[in-house]
């Protein structure tokens, strides 16, 4: 029984079957990649996991509890954090403040009316946020306006914010999309570091095979809304159906 | 039954005005992404084009012979119209009588020009500014326009009658087999309705069937992509702003015989037309028209005695009640698209 269990999930948009009969099990503390050509339903699946979309059929459970019908912030509070394709951070806030928000969310829950407490005197939160920034080698940027950082730094900050919540499952939606090779490698190293430094489950949707084969322990291939095959990276590499349906297309 | 038909007629008429103003407003929202609080002022300017036109036509000089005494006892001279000097007594009088329709010809270029100047001179610089700034600057502009009109024309309403031929009213009831006097409707309001229908159809046809319109519609959907295609979308948007101004202006010209215009009539319509646009769905042209007529008709029904007896004050709040109901059940208005003006 994996930490994330997706059973018979289906989702239609009008007449289009975006997902049909998807089954997926992500083992705890593993890195699981979901790959597939454009329009295979990867993003739809991800949105079903985090509460943005509600599947028409099937069930999604996290650590034995159903996530269906819960709002994104509730699912997040269960221990699932999401990294977006384009970094979603608080551009108007400083880097330190960006880090403090997940720390607050972790400690105080979805809502807390601390309107009279001086934010900067909250040592616990400031320390934790600064610690996290140090860990991510971003402490020198803590006073910066988040919107003014480079894309690579924004991505790093977003991942750091997700980690600050100490999630049990980290969902990454094409984390290296649009990145230069050097940045991509940095991100891979970062994810490896994360993986090695703490117990965490990572599910990653990715287009870039280099990233997938560097990180993943298991891979699910999605095509036309259904899982084609699920196996270890080595087996996937050699799998004829995958080559035909997917890799063949992308590597010519 | 008669009362029902009657209120539908009244509603169509009110709806025409709402729809015409909202159409321009939503066009500007949709194309330029600008919240234009000066749109009501454009409507008012249109009305004052008609007022000015009728005053120009009535320019006169004093007759050479006195014809009585005035209130202070001084000799009084009759006024003689210049148009009558130029076109002869009869044609001159007809021109004066037809001042409002004649004004349409003048209003189109004038309002287009005002629109161009406004967009190039002011609005252009606010595309990328927050909506709050757009509201502040266009509201400031609306006040300035109003005050300038007030300075020259005063605060009092100015009667601007329809041509003689369109005064009086038409008995629909007889046409439909009811008793006389059950469903009567003024001719000019009928004219207004058909005029509005033509303008709305023209705007839609323009957007639907011309390449210019296609580009603009594409721009409304996705401005960046159209920009990437190397099409100069800005120039087209300027023209669209001019057209929106002209539509509001024409709505104003034709409205003058219905109710005498005054300098703050734009503000009276401004809030309502925003409600209409939002109920219709931000940036949706058919939505604006639909919501305009819908709210016009509902407002008319809420004004009937049985409605106000059932719920006192319903006639004053119906539009807002409907707006709330629509927005709570349909998050983006009746025909709105996702993502427009939600941030």
């Amino acid at each position, binding site marked *: 029984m994996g930490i994330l269990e997706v059973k018979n999930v289906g989702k239609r948009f009008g007449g289009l079957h975006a997902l049909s009969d998807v089954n997926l099990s992500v083992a705890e503390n593993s890195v699981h990649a979901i790959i597939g050509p454009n329009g295979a339903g990867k993003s739809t699946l991800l949105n079903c996991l985090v509460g943005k979309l509600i599947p028409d059929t099937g069930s999604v459970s996290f650590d034995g509890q159903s996530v269906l019908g819960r709002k994104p912030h509730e699912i997040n509070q269960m221990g699932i954090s999401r990294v977006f394709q384009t970094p979603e951070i608080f551009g108007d806030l400083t880097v330190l403040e960006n880090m403090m928000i997940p720390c607050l969310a972790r400690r105080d829950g979805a809502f807390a009316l601390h309107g009279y407490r001086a934010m900067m005197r909250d040592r616990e939160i400031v320390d934790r946020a600064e610690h996290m920034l140090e860990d991510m080698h971003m402490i020198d940027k803590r006073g910066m306006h988040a919107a003014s950082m480079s894309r690579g730094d924004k991505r790093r900050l977003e991942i750091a914010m997700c980690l600050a919540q100490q999630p049990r499952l980290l969902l990454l939606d094409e984390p290296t999309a649009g990145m230069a090779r050097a940045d991509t490698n940095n991100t891979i190293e970062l994810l490896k570091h994360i993986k090695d430094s703490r117990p965490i489950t990572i599910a990653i949707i990715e287009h870039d095979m280099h990233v997938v084969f560097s990180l993943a322990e298991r891979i699910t291939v999605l095509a036309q809304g259904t899982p084609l095959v699920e196996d270890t990276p080595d087996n996937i590499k050699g799998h004829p159906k995958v080559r035909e349906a997917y890799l063949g297309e992308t590597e010519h | 039954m*008669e*009362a029902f038909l*009657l*209120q539908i*007629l*009244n*509603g169509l*008429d*009110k709806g025409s*005005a709402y729809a015409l103003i909202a159409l321009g407003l939503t066009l500007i929202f949709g194309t330029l992404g600008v919240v234009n609080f000066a749109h009501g002022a454009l409507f008012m300017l249109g009305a004052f084009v008609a007022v000015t036109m009728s005053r120009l036509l009535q320019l006169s000089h004093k007759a050479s012979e006195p014809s009585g005494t*005035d*209130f*202070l006892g001084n000799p*009084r001279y009759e006024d003689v119209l210049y148009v009558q000097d130029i076109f002869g007594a009869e044609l001159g009088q007809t021109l004066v009588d037809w001042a409002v329709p004649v004004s349409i010809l003048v209003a189109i270029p004038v309002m287009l020009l005002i629109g161009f100047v406004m967009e190039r001179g002011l609005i252009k610089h606010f595309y990328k500014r927050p909506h709050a700034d757009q509201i502040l600057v266009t509201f400031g502009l609306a006040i300035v326009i109003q005050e300038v009109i*007030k300075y020259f024309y*005063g*605060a*009092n*309403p*100015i*009667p601007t*009658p329809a041509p003689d031929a369109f*005064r*009086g*009213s038409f008995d629909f009831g007889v046409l439909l087999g009811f008793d006389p*006097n*059950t469903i*009567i*409707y*003024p001719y*000019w*309001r009928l004219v207004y309705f058909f005029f509005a229908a033509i303008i709305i159809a023209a705007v839609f046809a323009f957007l639907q069937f011309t390449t210019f319109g296609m580009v603009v519609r594409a721009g409304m959907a996705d401005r960046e992509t159209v920009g990437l295609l190397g099409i100069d979308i800005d120039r087209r948007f300027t023209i669209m702003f001019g057209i929106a101004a002209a539509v509001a202006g024409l709505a104003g010209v034709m409205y003058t015989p*219905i*109710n*005498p215009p*005054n300098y*703050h*009539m734009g503000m*009276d*319509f401004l809030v309502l037309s925003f409600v209409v646009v939002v109920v219709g769905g931000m940036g949706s042209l058919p939505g604006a028209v639909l919501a305009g007529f819908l709210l016009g008709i509902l*407002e*008319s029904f809420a*004004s*009937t*005695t049985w409605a*106000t007896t059932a719920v006192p*004050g319903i*006639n*004053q709040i119906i539009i807002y009640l409907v707006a709330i109901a629509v927005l709570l059940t349909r998050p983006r208005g009746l025909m709105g698209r996702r993502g427009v003006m939600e941030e």
Partner: protein
Amino acid sequence: MTRSHFTRRGVMKTGAATGAGLTLPTIFTGASRAQEQGFTNAPTGDTVTLGFNVPQTGPYADEGADELRAFELAVEHLNGEGDGGMLQTFSSKELDGSGIMGKRVEFVTGDTQTKSDAARAAAQSMIQKDGAVMISGGSSSGVAVAVQGLCQDAGVIFMSGLTHSNDTTGKDKKANGFRHFFNAYMSAAAMAPVLESLYGTDRKAYHLTADYTWGWTQQESIAAATEALGWETVENVLTPLAATDFSSYIAPVLNSGADVLVLNHYGGNMVNSLTNAVQFGLKQAQANGKDFQIVVPLYSELMARGAGENIAGIPGSQNWDWKLENERGSRYTGTNAFVQSFGQKYGFPPSQAAHTCYAQTLLYADAVTRAGSFNPCAVVEALEDFEFDGLGNGPTLYRAADHQCFKDVVVVRGKENPDNEFDLVEIVEVTPTEAVTYEPDHPMFAGGELGECNPGA
């Protein structure tokens, strides 16, 4: 710029007297000296400041502008400049053109915006900052009641401008407030005999009423007066103040069995509802075998101008009309004197709003002079039950019980072919004072108390 010549010269004179070109000795904060004489803003020095609070922005701005013209004219006459206007015809001969009690009259102006809050703010500033000892003006009842209450609390006199609601001298009456203008009850009482003679006693009336206090009192008054004639009130429909188009209220009228439409509207509401009624052909229509009629209980020149030719033949009442003396004789003496000096200065005849504001200013000045004091309580005493003549309305009484003026009421009708934009109405009848007088405890005026005069400070 000739119109303000006098002011400027006067100012230059006083400016020179104090030895500084830039000095304007208009503004004294009287509060500090108030204790000396025991009432708010007791004038010190050789000037006295009056506050004229009129709508300068918003829909009634033109009416406010006309009021302001009248105030300026009144100040001019009080200070002995110009031709003296109604000072010559006023029955009380105390005023001699030397200002008020020898003090030159200065004035400050404010903008009511026709909103209670703004009007009170403007009045406060005149009282607290400029040391005004009297506030006058205004063009709606809401504002009048609001400012009257303020003046009562602050201890200055309020001489209301145009306010027609029964409440101003009814349930909201105040000891420090005085109304020269007539009211809704008087309109109705004056109209009733005229309506009877014009349209008979067998009529069915349909009322459209502006949905706020003034509209209600107007409707209540006219309905009571016409029902006493034998008319039947078919329906009373309340219309929102903010309404700009009345088609959905007008359209059902013809089919309702009524043969008279009463428009209890004022200002923009009246202009639009009347225009709409004419559009819908009500003027030409027949109902119950009679010609359909429209009645507008309260008329004003500016409304008539706004409605244009639509007002032709439509009866209504006015506080005063500039043709009164010419057409109805010397009972209304003062009218021509006022029209003459107003017309000379501004080039057109004055409105009834201008007239009432001018009269109020003179009445105040006269009361102060007769009382020999600016103390509000002395002024109140001088004005209460004061009978006067020569201010254009014929013999008039300022009743002590409610501070309402009682005088003849003019019933007018829109002219069929007006000569110019200032001569839009013709006088049909002047209803004598007796016919419009009511008891102070009349139910329509009950509920309030005049209270004690308040000298403030």
